[in-house]
């Protein structure tokens, strides 16, 4: 019965039979005027080999992702606009400000690969650790929780301003905040379940830099993913390498997979932004020049430095030798990865790398 309307407006729809029955007294007669209104009707998407995925829905007008989304309402992409709806402060309305081709599939992956710290983590595998090691683990948990809650805060700050024309990105970022919440849960449980407790709050130089990046979501993504995220991935990988039991092994292993999705989105978005917005590569260069200073300062001062060295060295004594060497090599890997990704993005940093980061290339 439905036919596709030209220019997408009124679509003939099945209307209820009004010939015989009378309306009940006192109850308004429904008009069903809205039933004929659709921008595109008759869509029948079939599940693919991986099921019915978000990216499969991008057919017809529903798959038209414009470079600019002028609409400042909450209208879902493809729905008919309603005249008179007041605008909302969706200030990010350009595709290059948030887009990543991978977002829809990363969303699917995130909801499919969810895990439950309460029951999936084998908590009974926790065994008492030497006091210095337990304190170091708890200190690292404390700081990583702050990394994660910084990510939640900055994503939600910008998510509020992202227009619905790019809903795949909003969907994915919703899963990223949930990943963060889950990591906070898992780390808090780890810290409070083996005789220790939370350690000291982080000084938070990079956290503050991320939270104060107000030039746009892309600027935040530079600090959140390219700098902090790349570092956090190495920290998680180092922790997995030094896990003391199956509980830690599962937490860090799962967190690595979660954060790999975040980095994939972040790198993909930055690549899109650089390749679709004139001058963006130069802007990233400036941001990175500033960001490297903060990152270098935090690496120097953060309590994660001695805490991770103690974990990698099996105690304070080992932390002074092999543990610190392992930590420095880990940071060296972070800087090398960072430079490689910068090259891939078309924002080479090797020649301009700040000395506070450059020194780690020795390790």
């Amino acid at each position: 019965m439905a036919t596709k309307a030209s220019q997408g407006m009124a679509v003939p729809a099945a209307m209820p039979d009004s010939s015989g029955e009378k309306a009940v007294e006192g109850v308004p007669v429904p008009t069903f005027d809205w039933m004929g209104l659709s921008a595109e009707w008759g869509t029948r998407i079939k599940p693919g080999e991986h099921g019915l995925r978000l990216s499969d829905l991008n057919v017809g007008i529903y798959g038209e992702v414009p470079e600019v989304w002028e609409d400042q309402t909450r209208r879902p992409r493809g729905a008919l606009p309603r005249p008179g709806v007041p605008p909302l402060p969706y200030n990010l309305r350009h595709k290059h400000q948030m887009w990543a081709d991978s977002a829809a599939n990363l969303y699917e992956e995130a909801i499919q690969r969810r895990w439950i710290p309460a029951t999936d983590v084998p908590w009974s595998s926790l065994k008492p650790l030497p006091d210095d090691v337990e304190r170091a683990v708890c200190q690292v948990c404390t700081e990583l929780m702050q990394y994660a809650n910084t990510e939640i805060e900055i994503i939600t700050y910008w998510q509020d301003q992202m227009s619905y024309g790019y809903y795949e990105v909003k969907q994915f970022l919703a899963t990223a905040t949930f990943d963060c919440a889950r990591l906070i849960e898992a780390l808090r449980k780890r810290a409070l379940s083996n005789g220790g407790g939370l350690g000291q709050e982080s000084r938070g130089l990079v956290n503050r830099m991320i939270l104060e990046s107000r030039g746009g979501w892309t600027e935040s993504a530079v600090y959140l993913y390219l700098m902090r995220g790349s570092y956090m991935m190495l920290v998680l990988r180092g922790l997995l390498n030094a896990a003391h039991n199956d509980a830690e092994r599962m937490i860090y292993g799962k967190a690595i997979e979660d954060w790999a999705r975040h980095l994939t989105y972040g790198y993909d978005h930055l690549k899109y932004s650089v390749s679709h917005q004139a001058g963006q590569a130069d802007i990233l260069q400036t941001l990175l020049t500033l960001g490297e200073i903060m990152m270098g300062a935090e690496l120097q001062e953060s309590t994660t430095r001695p805490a991770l060295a103690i974990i990698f060295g099996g105690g304070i004594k080992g932390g002074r030798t092999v543990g610190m060497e392992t930590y420095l090599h880990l940071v060296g890997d972070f800087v090398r990865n960072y430079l490689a990704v910068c090259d891939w993005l078309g924002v080479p940093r090797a020649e301009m790398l700040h000395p506070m980061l450059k020194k780690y290339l020795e390790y």
Partner: protein
Amino acid sequence: MAVFPSLDWFQKVRDVYNSDGSLHKGGGGACHTTAAFKVNGQSYLIVFEGLKCADIRTPTDSELSEADFVIEMPFELWKAMVANVQSHGKADLHYTLNSLDLQQDEGIAYSPADDQYRQDLFYRYNQNFQDFFDASARVETTFA
């Protein structure tokens, strides 16, 4: 008894991996990727589809160049990793893919197309691949 490395060995591991869902605990989710292992001059292509290892075969040059990522390390390290899995029932912390990647200066995984997105699949599906190699504990193995 299967000989490592050989296509027969990898296929036996695949059969074990696919036959027991309890071996998928680390990955715990669907995995869609085509990767390759380079072992002692020989390449093996592995195709993951959902919760299964759909295929493992000897790749053509073209298939190898189109793999999402390749895992390559010195043969002695491959042997040590498999032997470690055989001894412990799963890789201990010195012989996980993550550990070996950290230990090697250039890492053990790379994208043949130098594509960061595809390279990152190594980390997104890291535990699925670990589960796969841990399943080799149930394959009676001898070394070439």
